[in-house]
């Protein structure tokens, strides 16, 4: 067998395998993945830490939203950390008169999101910390939904269902579909004790966890992912809610989306690399499956791109006379598996969207997602590789 054929079979088998793991996880947990933990009735103190950099556009509304939380107001505090904004963010945060929840606004020199979070956590008095972006909007039962997960003393963090509001923008709608899929996969991964991220838009932590595992990494492209990996590297649990909703504002154009995703890819890869020492049986599924899978996925992407390029460049001259026939004859095991993987992923996406009652996705967005949006990943990954090779400095 030729080397290139072997590589293509390995990629095909790997893609199939990862998808099947997800499908089986779904089948195994289909009766419980939507279940909510029993209400505890407890109302511990919660500090909501909101780092903000030039968020004057959204911050007032997002604080207003917190006032609507169904939770004793005297058990809450809001800590806004203005990370050296050049706009009115600080002024707006401090302007809430007669606010039902006490708001503490702080101002510091610009030092990045991780530093701002750590600053806020140091000021926080609550037993629990909710980290939150200034452009996120919570729904009122957020804390009532998330806190019961902490009844299990090993649970150190819980993430809610981060969603995007329906809109008329194609790009936002496609991301909305994608977020539903991410949520669904994250829920399934939580059954393997390998939650990949405690999302920046909103996540809750036991305050003690920062003493046990340390504060947020201040020099990380995706500090919300690093903290999740670190918490789990100490064998603590992270849970994921499918019900508690928080709405975030997605990138509105291709350029912003691209830079966000390249940041995720670069940061994500580096974080998993940092925790590669966990590839050991004692770290269970996280060590033996989730982490290796990340590297294998990245490896598959690059091999696939290299393979396609190689095939294109080495196409024999005569194929131009029979390109139509060659297309038919070219259908092989790899093509078959590729088609199968696309169909299976589409089915998986359908399951994901169906899991969220009330989330209606128009067929045209679903089809565009399956037919085009997915393949943007090749672009992100190529840019990620390019930036790594050029050793380009990290930036937001």
């Amino acid at each position, binding site marked *: *067998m*030729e080397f290139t054929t072997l590589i293509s079979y390995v990629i*095909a*088998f790997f893609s*199939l*395998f990862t998808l*099947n*793991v997800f*499908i*089986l*996880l779904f089948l*195994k947990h289909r009766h419980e993945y939507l279940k909510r933990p029993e209400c505890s009735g407890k109302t511990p103190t919660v500090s909501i830490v909101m780092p903000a950099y030039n968020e004057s556009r959204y911050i007032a509304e997002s604080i207003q939203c917190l006032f609507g939380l169904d939770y004793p107001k005297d058990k809450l505090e809001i800590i806004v950390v203005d990370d050296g904004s050049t706009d009115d963010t600080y002024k707006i945060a401090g302007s809430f008169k007669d606010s039902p929840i006490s708001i503490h606004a702080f101002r510091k020199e610009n030092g990045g999101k991780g530093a701002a979070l750590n600053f806020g956590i140091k000021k926080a008095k609550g037993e629990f910390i909710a980290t939150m972006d200034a452009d996120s909007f919570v729904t009122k039962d957020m804390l009532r939904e998330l806190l019961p997960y902490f009844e299990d003393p*090993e649970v150190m963090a819980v993430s809610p269902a981060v969603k995007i509001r329906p809109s008329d923008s194609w790009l936002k709608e496609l991301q909305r579909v994608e977020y539903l899929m991410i949520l669904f996969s994250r829920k399934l991964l939580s059954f*393997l*004790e390998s939650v990949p991220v405690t999302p920046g838009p909103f996540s809750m932590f036991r305050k003690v966890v920062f003493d046990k595992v340390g504060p947020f990494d201040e020099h990380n492209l995706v500090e919300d992912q690093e903290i999740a990996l670190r918490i789990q590297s100490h*064998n*603590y*649990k992270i849970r994921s809610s499918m019900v508690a909703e928080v709405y975030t504002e997605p990138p509105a154009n291709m350029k912003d989306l691209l830079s966000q995703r390249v940041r995720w890819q670069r940061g994500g890869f580096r974080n998993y690399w940092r925790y590669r020492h966990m590839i050991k*049986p*004692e*770290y*269970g*599924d*996280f*060590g*033996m*499956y989730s982490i290796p899978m990340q590297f294998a996925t990245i490896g598959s992407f690059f091999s696939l791109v290299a393979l396609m390029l190689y095939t294109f460049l080495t196409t*024999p*001259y*005569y*194929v131009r*006379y*029979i390109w139509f*026939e*060659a297309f*038919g*004859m*070219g*259908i*092989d*095991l790899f093509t*078959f*598996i590729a088609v*199968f993987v696309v169909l299976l992923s589409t089915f998986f996406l359908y399951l994901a969207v169906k899991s969220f009652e009330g989330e209606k996705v128009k067929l045209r967005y679903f089809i565009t997602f399956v037919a085009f949006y997915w393949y943007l990943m090749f672009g992100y990954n190529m840019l990620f590789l390019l930036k790594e090779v050029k050793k380009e400095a990290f930036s937001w």
Partner: protein
Amino acid sequence: MERTVSVPLYIGAFLMSLAIFLLGIYIGSTMDSSHLASISEDVSSVSDRVASVQLLILMEGNSSAFCPVYSSELDAIDNDVEKMGYMLTYLEDEKGVFDNELKKKYFVLEAESYVLSRKVNDLCGDDSTLLINFYSNKDCGRCKEQGTEILQARDELAAGGVGVKLFSFDGELNSSVADALEAQYGVSGYPSVVIDGKTYSGFRTSDELKALIKGSS
């Protein structure tokens, strides 16, 4: 928390993937043999067309009255024969699928259409050049490259209105027609090209080939 590895989950996913993989291998090999079968059918049907042109020429007692019919039918035949050759090469080189008996059958067809083309060229005063490419799939470093050079030369000449018909033979397949042609043209190594009956052994670039073809006509 005590961590565990969900071994049954991965075994399950592995077995599911394996099942789909085996199905893919089965479908793939079925399709490969169906491609070979369809080329085999094409070889037979084109053989019939060659035979009917031969018959027509014999019946007309070598008169040139039907030359336009011969030429147009033969052009179509040669075109089809060439295409089948590419398909066989594609299956063999890109997918490792081949059938030596089919290849031999194909070489017989090729030899027949070559002989017929020569006959029609003589009979009708057609000036298209006939080029035979003798190659080998074993130990021939530049045979593939030679094939490409020939095609490039042919395409460039075609753009200038010079017609070249191509016939390719694998000289080391023990095909009796290929061996007979090799003996006829004194071919001793690979690659070798025969242009309008004259043998040139060794690798030739497309420019060299173009010069040879232009010199021969």
